[in-house]
């Protein structure tokens, strides 16, 4: 039996465990009112009931995979390569959004002005710096990763994508903020 056909076993066990953990640890610890509670002399449904039922669904689904779909013909499962890709992807996103968040404030600091970035967050060109650099980085690094080289065409696409998004979201609308300007 290859590991591929054991996929439903793994998924089933995983979901069963998840369901149990959620229902018996997370929900009781992280809700205030229990499954049912008594308010104003009446029994009413508490905040813990719905998440417990949701967890029961997850667990039950896992159980069904274990019991009745254990030998299903098609059982896809993510390979090690798939997981490596997700990890690569997440690291890249962290870097890109790190740049997006901090490039603007950093640029303001470089100019030596004592005005904080916060008050400039809706003023051109400051408001575009973080978004432009981060967005450009995202598009260019992904395309280049697929093509395994950096081409001039890719750079142009990156610049065009960022400009297009600024034109769509920022120029026409006064009260929309591009990332990261709502957080600063």
């Amino acid at each position, binding site marked *: 039996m290859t590991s591929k056909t054991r996929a*439903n076993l793994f*998924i089933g066990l995983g*979901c069963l465990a998840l369901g149990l953990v959620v229902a018996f640890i*997370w*929900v009781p610890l*992280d*809700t*205030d*009112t229990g499954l049912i509670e008594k308010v104003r002399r*009446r029994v*009413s*449904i*508490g*905040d*813990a009931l*719905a*998440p417990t039922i*949701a*967890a*029961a*669904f*997850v667990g*039950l*689904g*896992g159980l*069904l*995979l274990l019991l*009745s*779909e254990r030998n299903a013909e098609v*059982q896809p*499962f993510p390979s090690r*390569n*798939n997981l490596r*890709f*997700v990890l690569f992807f997440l690291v890249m996103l962290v870097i890109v*959004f790190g740049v997006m968040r901090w490039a603007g404030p950093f640029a303001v600091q470089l100019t030596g002005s004592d005005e904080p970035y916060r008050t400039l967050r809706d003023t051109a060109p400051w408001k575009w710096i973080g*978004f432009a650099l981060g*967005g450009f980085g*995202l*598009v260019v690094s*992904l*395309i280049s*990763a*697929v*093509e*395994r080289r950096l081409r001039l065409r*890719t750079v142009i*696409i990156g610049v065009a*994508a960022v400009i297009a*998004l600024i034109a769509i*979201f920022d120029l*026409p*609308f006064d009260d*929309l*903020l*591009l*990332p*990261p300007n*709502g*957080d600063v």
Partner: protein
Amino acid sequence: MDVAGYIWLGILAVFQGPELSFLGFSLPATPVMVLCGFLLGIMVGATPGLAGPMAMAISLPILISSFGYNPDALLPVMGFLIGVMKGSTIGGAVPAILFNTPGTPDAYMTTLDGYPMTRRGKARKALRVAHFSSASGDTFSDVVLILCAPFLAVLVEAYLDLPEKTALLILSLAFIAAVIGGSIGKGLIATGLGLLAAYVGTGDDFYPRLSMGTQELAQGFPITTAVLGVLILGEVFKGIEDSLRHATSPGALQEVREEGDQSLRATDIRRILPFIGRSAVIGTAIGALPGVGSTLAATLGYTVGRNRHARRKAPDHKDFGEGAMEGIASTEAANSSVSGANLIPVLSLGIPGNAAAVFLILAAESIGGFNPGPTVFKFTTDSVNPELVVAFGLFTTMFIANALNWTVGGVFMRTMSVMIRIPKHILLPCVLLLTLTAIYVQETRLVAIWFAIGFGVLGYLMRRTGISPLPFVIAFILGGKLEETARQAFAATGGDPFFLFSSPVALLLMALTLVVILTSLRPKKEPASP
């Protein structure tokens, strides 16, 4: 105000609603937006790797920002989405017929006969057949929607009390979990996860449950992050990985060569009409059930058409799979007739049946002033029910889209063969940035982007483990409503723990739920192979 009055107001709301000025001309916004959405829909449908829901997801925040958060925005925005929904269905047939590459999943069956026709030099004729069948199926489906939705809604409102409404939601969720993806275990997992995500930060108590004491989770997951993350980003991640693995060069595309008569003659139409009719009925019936999408409709329509064709065809006609027009007609009529009918559960019950309907609900929720569900169809006589006007306005936009489908749709669709030349690995990163930006613009906090990425990873893993993401999304949308209705039913019945079983209708709905689950547990026969 009588029914005719409401219909008239709905039509007026479309043509006299908000206006767009363009080069000094002032045009009613809604029809223009329907047209834009329709053309965009054909374009994305014709682009392999993009699909209608993606275009709807991306355009939604832009549309809402342009039209504002007020009820006037509903018709232009939802009209646009309806246009995209309808356009992408016919667009999907273009690359399927010309290049043997389905532009949307439900166009897969179209390749079976479409591409052989192209190889025989009948590409344009195949496109015409696809367009004619699509537009016919669409029209049929719209008519059924308009006749059924108000009726069903009035019925629901008249006969269903809070406990029955709870039971109805449970039945829909069970149905969705059981039907989509073909594995009840996986369906339940996806449904459970969707409900769980919906319950984070919500609830009646002042303590935001499951928030682990953090401010970020206390507000819950914004609906856009969950829906766009799982549905769109999951697909984008998978697409990017696929193109990383198979370093792509689109390669030289074959030149499409044409010979002979390319027009669709009356005799042709007579030949394909019976197939269109059957498929339209099948597609409409399937569309009306929540959770069963156009892909199944296409498969079923094709199978039924094939069986009939095998029995009755003239000896000189091609078999299905060898380039029979009847094959294209069966598929396209079936998948196009889903779109109108799947608005029946949305408008009459507030239950979305597929991804396109999910985005319509998302639009209504983001804009406000329109709560899809039975209360919409309250025919008040002495004052105007604005939601009902919107509903009839939506019907009007569907007919506008339908008219566009018949007129410009065919011409525009035949020019779309260039879209296949856009490489996926360039398109997808741009879509990713666009989606994340769109989410931020609506939520204005970076943590929303991280939620969306987290849901994207979840959606990716679901795709890699063969768990359909659609039950997750629908459960997420219905989760809050389910809990609230159950709570209210419990309180309204004075704390009766058996409220789900105390009236005949509720009992019937719960029994149906049991039947749905039990049937899907039975070992399946080999599904009809395509």
